[in-house]
């Protein structure tokens, strides 16, 4: 699965994008965030308050209860400030 990060999520994790292979028990967005937090200090800092993290799956907004697709692009980012 491709992960892509934006704004301060990207800065804290220290990379723009990465490919990951998820263990079988990581099935929802919430479980993905929890799993990522254990990957290092940058991830822990970026995802310290998971409830503020916004998620898109294949370019569409998704909530934390959404089931992850088998493959595709999952984006993590802070609340948007466009316009």
């Amino acid at each position, binding site marked *: 699965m491709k992960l892509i990060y*934006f*704004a*301060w999520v990207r800065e804290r994790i220290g990379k723009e994008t990465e490919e990951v292979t998820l263990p079988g028990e990581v099935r929802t967005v919430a479980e993905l965030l929890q799993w990522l937090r254990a990957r290092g200090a940058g991830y822990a800092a970026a995802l310290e308050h998971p409830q503020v993290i916004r998620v898109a799956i294949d370019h569409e907004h998704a909530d934390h209860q959404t089931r992850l697709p088998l493959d595709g692009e999952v984006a993590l980012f802070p*609340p948007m*400030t466009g*316009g």
Partner: protein
Amino acid sequence: MGCEPHIRVQAEDFDLAVEIDRLTDGRRDVGAVVTFTGKCRDEGGRLAALELEHYPGMAEAEMTRIARQAAERWQLSGLTVVHRYGKIRPGENIVLVVTASSHRKAALEAADFLMDYLKSRAPFWKKEHLTDAGPGQWVEAKAEDENALERWKK
């Protein structure tokens, strides 16, 4: 149904007169054209620039979804949304919405709706560059912007 929206995400500036002409040239059924231009402010001299990051691909897709919602909800003859990214200085343009309709209320309400949704749903993020200290904080989303969406959920 509704009209097919014009959606663009670009680094360069836009020309408002050109965008209006695109929706009105040769037409005799347009009674109202509304434009909303969002610009970079210097926040009392504190800000040297805003740097706008965006999610390529999703930005266009989400802006198109928002615009189609507006085109279904109001009777519009034309609809354009242009959002810039990259470094933008005080006084420069950030975002443009143009709505054209036979009636003024449709054009005004649709522009209001589009700006509310672009603020909270289009994947753009603003980082401040300060006059005296270089790159600073990411702009924080405001609860009032998220709350503004409630107005439209009826």
